[in-house]
């Protein structure tokens, strides 16, 4: 059975697609590596500059808008800090693809407006591969290797939320729409 029929209807424009270069990381990338505790008290921009530094110092300076972060098992395990997802989003990451996610990170990522996709074949992706990610279809195309990987698709209501920039901006938009409709009535 598909979740697509559950709630709301697809808007069509909420595709959340991303294309970019792969940045590949191993298993168990935790929230301390994503949002180092040392920088938690300072300004958020500073924190983001140190995102993933402990495992790849070239990542934060080198990542381009739309690039895809590829993880192994348990990506984002650790604490519940929302900054872990926020930092990737801030750096322009187009999507995170992993074999599995820390549960709270997965929640936070989507709530912060960052596409997170579970993909059993994530291990086939190499650093700098050219990827196209389609969260609505649940498909990753590896243009470098000419391969296609199935992943768990995001249902329409979450895609819309992600495309709106996360839960709070999404609610903001919905409420503005309701206010307009009320005014028009």
């Amino acid at each position, binding site marked *: *059975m598909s979740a697509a029929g559950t709630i709301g209807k697809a808007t069509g424009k909420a595709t959340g697609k991303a294309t970019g270069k792969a940045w590949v990381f191993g298993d168990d990338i935790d929230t301390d590596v994503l949002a180092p505790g040392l920088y938690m008290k300072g300004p958020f921009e500073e924190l983001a500059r140190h995102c993933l530094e402990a495992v790849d110092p070239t990542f934060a300076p080198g990542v381009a808008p739309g690039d895809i972060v590829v993880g192994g098992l348990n990506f984002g395990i650790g604490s519940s800090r929302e900054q872990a997802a926020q930092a990737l989003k801030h750096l322009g990451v187009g999507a995170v693809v992993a074999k599995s996610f820390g*549960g709270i990170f997965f929640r*936070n990522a989507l*709530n912060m407006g960052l596409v997170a996709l579970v993909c059993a074949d994530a291990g086939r992706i190499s650093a700098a591969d050219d990827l196209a990610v389609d969260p609505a279809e649940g498909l990753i195309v590896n243009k470098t290797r000419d391969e296609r990987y199935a992943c768990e698709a995001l249902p329409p*209501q*979450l895609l819309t939320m992600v495309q709106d920039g996360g*839960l709070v901006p999404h609610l903001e938009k919905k*409420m503005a729409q309701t206010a307009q409709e009320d005014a028009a009535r």
Partner: protein
Amino acid sequence: MAQTLAEKIIAKAAGRGTVSPGEIVTCRVDLAMMHDSGGPRRVKPVLERLGAKVWDPEKVVVVSDHYVPAVDAESAAILDLTRKWTAANGIGKFHDMQGICHVVLPERGHLRPGLFVVGGDSHSPTGGAFGCYMFGVGATDMAGVLVTGETWIKVPETIRIAIDGDLGDGLSAKDILLHLCARIGMGGGAYQAIQYTGSTVANLSMQERMTLSNMAAELGAQAGLIEGDETTAAYIRKAGGDPGDVSAWRGDDDAAYLATHHVDAAALIPQVAAPHSPANSGPVTDLGGEAIHQAYIGACTGAKLDDLHMAARVMKGRKVADGTRLLIAPASTRTTAAAAADGTLATLTEAGAILLPSGCGACAGYGAGVLAEDEVCISSTARNFKGRMGAKSSRVYLGSPFTVAASAVVGRVADPREFLEGGAP
């Protein structure tokens, strides 16, 4: 299609017949619980930005427990904001300084089997003891719930933990959980739903079941469920709630479970977790012996009436060792009242215990009873991460209230069984 208890509750909340693990659904929230630390002060700015109101004030419970009683101007301001926000938003279910949220929630009859509940705290799985799907969410998630009355969830797999056999004297739910932390690890729950089953669980009181569910958080699970039975229904009725049809909320025997772990409760001996992780657990006979400065009985995990009874059985007619202090922060004001009425408090204070206010207290370093550099403590709380209870270099052991009390008597991390009549060895 056969469904686990978690799947049944989520399906009902999603307005569906059935759900499957891995799919993402949107659920109506039956109840949302917040406390003073993660609640009003964090959600207020989001609600203001959105110009939104609380979707249904009847379905929101607010408890002040982290910063109570105020110890400085900052904590007083947080409590002041909490009181003003709940009043302004018409939250009738505001329990101000009545105890720790996870204990107050069932005590006031707010939980019953089948409910889909979100809590703004990481130990929210405690509600699972009442057959609810209850899990912890962050401030952004909570603000979304308050505005819409809904939240999304990825349907979890269910991991069954079957606990059978009679616990020996001097053992408790805490020992079972510490044993599991060592065995399957803090990530063993994999953010799935744990369901506790078996004869041992069936024989436990509600308060002891709450300890099992509470520490599902330490196993890394999203929820820690126990199916309701007569014990559940009796507790809820006594708390003034309506248990509903308890037997309606059970998992199907032929449902798909991700894994089943078996625990032989009869073979357990008292467990302690050495610093600085609950997963550093093992038998007190191996890990005991270190001299302690403080013994602490507190928290949602370890200071309910049953916990105080355990401590009192050890302390009766004995004294806290010289150079050691025993601090007790009952989990709620009702716990204190009941322990006063049945003589438990007198037993404890005559033994030299120092009574603290009901609240989170020293558990996460918020209130009275924090540790100095290099001090060693044994505590009935759920976590012993570095620096959580005070100074960075302090060291915390975790144990059951029996074990904490015995350690207070000896002045070292000690086996409680020798202090109990007929106890081995």
